[in-house]
């Protein structure tokens, strides 16, 4: 059996994602222009002064995307944190203990899965109202079932394996067995799933904000900007293209990381 080796996918993915995240982090502290400042330079195409051009209010699109993608990144990251966190807990309990808890939680899970995810998010938003944090909660809940099901399988597969039987015989607590003995052996399915989930969360946030049920001003996010860009697609096509381009590049970079991790596991197996 081989040692785990980095491959091209993983390296390329980390570089692309790293650059974008660095760019977004810089946007938290510094943008070339204030993102909401209007000016007389309206509807200008890309130029050295305005790399992504300006919109119909004369705002610098580069600065807006820099800040807006930060909001999207935050929403996506917290969404998968909630989704995978709750999913791991539910999956661990149902997969390891089985029995009645398993039956009840998994049927509840099936019920959640039965709704189309965007519809479920819509229902939750209509209860909570729009806004950045409510989007995070809504998407987080929508993301729980898939992680729960996946982690349940990963934990259940180890339940009667000899090293877990040994751990029980040596008197290790259930919590210790779940967290220390079992969880590390689920990472090879969890980590690629996190990258896929992250991408889905970016796209889900974009569609929700695009539909007007996502973030509210003064917050800007990728989806919010896309819906703005739609209104000036004829006069400022570079707006939609630059927002879409950054989303595509971020999703592409993270996908490469996921693909790279999966290939790394296959090589080891």
């Amino acid at each position, binding site marked *: *059996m081989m040692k785990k080796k980095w491959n091209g996918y993983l390296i390329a993915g980390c570089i692309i994602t790293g650059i974008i995240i660095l760019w977004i982090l810089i946007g938290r502290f510094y943008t070339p222009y204030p993102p909401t400042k209007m000016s007389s330079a309206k509807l200008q195409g890309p130029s050295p002064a305005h790399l992504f051009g300006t919109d119909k209010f004369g705002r610098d699109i580069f600065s807006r995307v820099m800040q807006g993608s930060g909001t999207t990144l935050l929403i996506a990251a917290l969404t998968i944190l909630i989704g995978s966190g709750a999913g791991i807990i539910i999956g661990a309990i149902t997969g390891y203990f089985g029995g009645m808890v398993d039956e009840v939680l998994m049927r509840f899970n099936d019920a959640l899965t039965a709704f189309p995810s965007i519809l479920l998010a819509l229902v939750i938003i209509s209860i909570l109202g729009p806004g950045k944090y409510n989007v995070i909660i809504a998407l987080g809940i929508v993301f729980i079932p898939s992680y729960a099901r996946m982690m349940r399988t990963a934990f259940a597969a180890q339940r009667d394996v*000899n*090293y877990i*039987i040994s751990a029980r015989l*040596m*008197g290790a607590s259930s919590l210790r067995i779940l967290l220390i003995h079992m969880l*590390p052996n689920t990472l090879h399915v969890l980590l690629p799933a996190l990258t896929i989930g992250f991408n889905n969360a970016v796209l889900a946030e974009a569609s929700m904000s695009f539909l007007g049920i996502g973030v509210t001003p003064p917050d800007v996010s990728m989806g919010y900007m896309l819906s703005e860009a739609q209104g000036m697609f004829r006069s400022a096509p570079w707006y939609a293209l630059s927002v879409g381009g950054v989303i595509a590049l971020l999703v592409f970079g993270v996908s490469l990381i996921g693909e790279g991790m999966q290939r790394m596991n296959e090589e080891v197996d």
Partner: protein
Amino acid sequence: MADSILDTITTMTGLGADPAAEAVTEAQRQLVLEVNLVSGGYRTPGLFGKGKYQQVLYDVDFNIRHGEIMGLVGESGTGKSTLARMILGMLEPEEGSIVHYTKRPQIIFQDPYSSLNPAYTVEWSLEEPLRVFGKYDEAERKRRVRDMLAKVELPQEVLSAKPSELSGGQRQRVSIAAALIRRPRFIIADEPVSALDVTIQAQILQLLRDLREELDLSYLFISHDLNVVYQLCDRVLVMKKGRIVEQGTVDEVYDHPKEEYTKQLLAAAQ
């Protein structure tokens, strides 16, 4: 925690006040395990009601003496592993009782590929039972790990290796070390050499024999290989369809088998 409870139970059952009880105690001190007319099996849990019950063991009755290697032979599917699970406390007997006179027993499994956690190094796997026990500081744990590694005749270099980097024989030695690290007095070995090459088999059997002397162990040695049992064991239990059909010293059973089933098994092993 569980160890201390078991110890307490042992003390409670082992020490009586009146002289008659003490005579019993002396005889019992020679025992590590008593299995008294045990019957039982598996219940498949159902959503409603008690579910299905499948009986596996019928009136199993034997004991294991201090320092003894007891063989348990029989075809596969006859209930050997079920009996092991019951002795380990993973499964409750429906009838009868199992009495331990030592600390909680540990088990050595057949498949050395699944008995060690693939996510961790050998050092971690050996240290973990001591960490869970919680009575030793880190230096003492490391000392015991190194000491046990020497006892199973492995070089110190394997400590930093993951199980995937070891051979089957090395893994089985690590599994033995992990089972013994808390110094149990009674070990259940469930087909511990059947997954290994013949030369490695001989080495592991010799190791088990040496460790018995060195660490004052008793074994229940489960196997379907009658030749291996003959080499290693003092006494032997022959199991058929969940019942012990014959038991005695290895020489008695191998030279003068009483049961037709034992004769068939012996003939098949020739």
